[in-house]
């Protein structure tokens, strides 16, 4: 597929011949980066098809949020055919990676790269620099502040929510490093958010505890995941939409349980 916003190749300038296996490796790695960056399913399948097409290889791909299956064969009539499976375990949202892979696959259509050059480029994307940790931490704090005030809280509520979300975000970042269970991490974060905000509410009675809790868990709740799940279903990827919605349900349940337990604890403690 070729959008008019990008240059459309009328003739492919040069095609470097690669083995089927090598092309599939490039396509699989691009698909993996897209999927772990939280891309839509149709975009992953589209990109894999486009890369295989650029090297003149027939391929069929089946992508779900938890794994990629692709198989391809060379179109020159030889019997060589390769299938590959990649299991995907972690998914975050990283829009910069989606953008880079998108341009990468479009550039491949204009002129193909050698295997080593392409793999170097992809591995470079995988470790592409984020915003620094401090900037992301501050962004998390300001997000919570903005939503607390937007959802009818006062400015002081917002400051408390921002502080709690700084705590939550640094905790989440630590979890990511040690590969801790995502759901249990969410549970602990929301438990902490509930405990801290209720204790703050006990100390300063003018605070609105509900809006502090809501604001501080704003960076955890899976609103986007539910919406993306339904969008996958509308694109015809029914299986993926089930997976995404189920994941979102488990995440929101763990958050809700965390807050509910902290509410209960505080009721009997004080």
């Amino acid at each position, binding site marked *: 597929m070729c959008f008019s916003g990008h240059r459309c190749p009328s003739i492919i300038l040069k095609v470097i011949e690669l083995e089927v296996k090598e092309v599939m490796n490039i396509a699989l790695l691009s698909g993996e980066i897209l999927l772990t960056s939280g891309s839509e399913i149709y975009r992953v399948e589209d990109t894999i098809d486009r890369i295989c097409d650029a090297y003149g290889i027939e391929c069929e791909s089946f992508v779900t949020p938890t794994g990629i299956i692709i198989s391809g064969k060379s179109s020159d009539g030889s019997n060589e055919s390769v299938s590959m499976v990649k299991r995907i375990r972690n998914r975050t949202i990283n829009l910069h990676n989606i953008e880079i892979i998108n341009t990468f696959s479009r550039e491949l259509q204009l002129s193909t790269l050698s295997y080593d050059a392409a793999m170097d480029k992809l591995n470079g994307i995988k470790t592409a620099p984020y915003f620094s940790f401090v900037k992301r931490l501050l962004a998390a704090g300001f997000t919570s502040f903005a939503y607390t005030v937007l959802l009818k809280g006062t400015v002081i509520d917002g400051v408390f929510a921002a502080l709690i979300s700084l705590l939550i975000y640094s905790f989440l970042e630590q979890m990511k490093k040690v590969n801790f269970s995502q759901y249990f991490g969410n549970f602990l974060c929301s438990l902490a958010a509930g405990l801290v905000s209720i204790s703050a509410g006990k100390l300063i009675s003018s605070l609105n505890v509900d809006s502090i809790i809501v604001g501080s868990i704003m960076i955890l709740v899976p609103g*986007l995941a539910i919406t993306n799940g339904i969008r996958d279903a509308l694109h015809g990827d029914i299986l993926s939409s089930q997976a995404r919605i189920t994941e979102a349900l488990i995440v929101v349940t763990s958050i809700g349980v965390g807050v509910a337990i902290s509410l209960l604890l505080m009721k009997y403690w004080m």
Partner: protein
Amino acid sequence: MIEILLAFLGSYFPAVLFNIERKNLVWAGLCGAAGWMAYKAVLTITASSIFAVFVAAVVISLLSEVLAKILKTPSTVFYIPSLYPIVPGISAYHTVLFIIEDKIVEAAYKGLETLGSAGAIAFGILLVSTVFRYINTQNIYLRKQ
């Protein structure tokens, strides 16, 4: 006015968390602010939150498709952060909390609202992106002739 500024911040800072390129940050924030304005305006006129969310999703995805054309990036980059103020994350959380507190009627109400607004947003984006895709394929078709 303050709400619009807050909605701008509420899309700008999640965009930092989603790691988008620095030059696109402001545009994502502006998209979010425009979406929130549309949401508030329709909500005060019709008092239907699901319809308001639908209109906001249409506005956001129209803006992000146009921006994607101008700045030559995929439209996902703009609409994921700018949908952040209107996606039903908080109402999903309230649903679970109501279920735990044994308030089934409120839970059912909130749960349906969550599903309804998620569906409305998804449908609004799909509507706009399908139209844009159709225009693109028409352009390519015409150019080939």
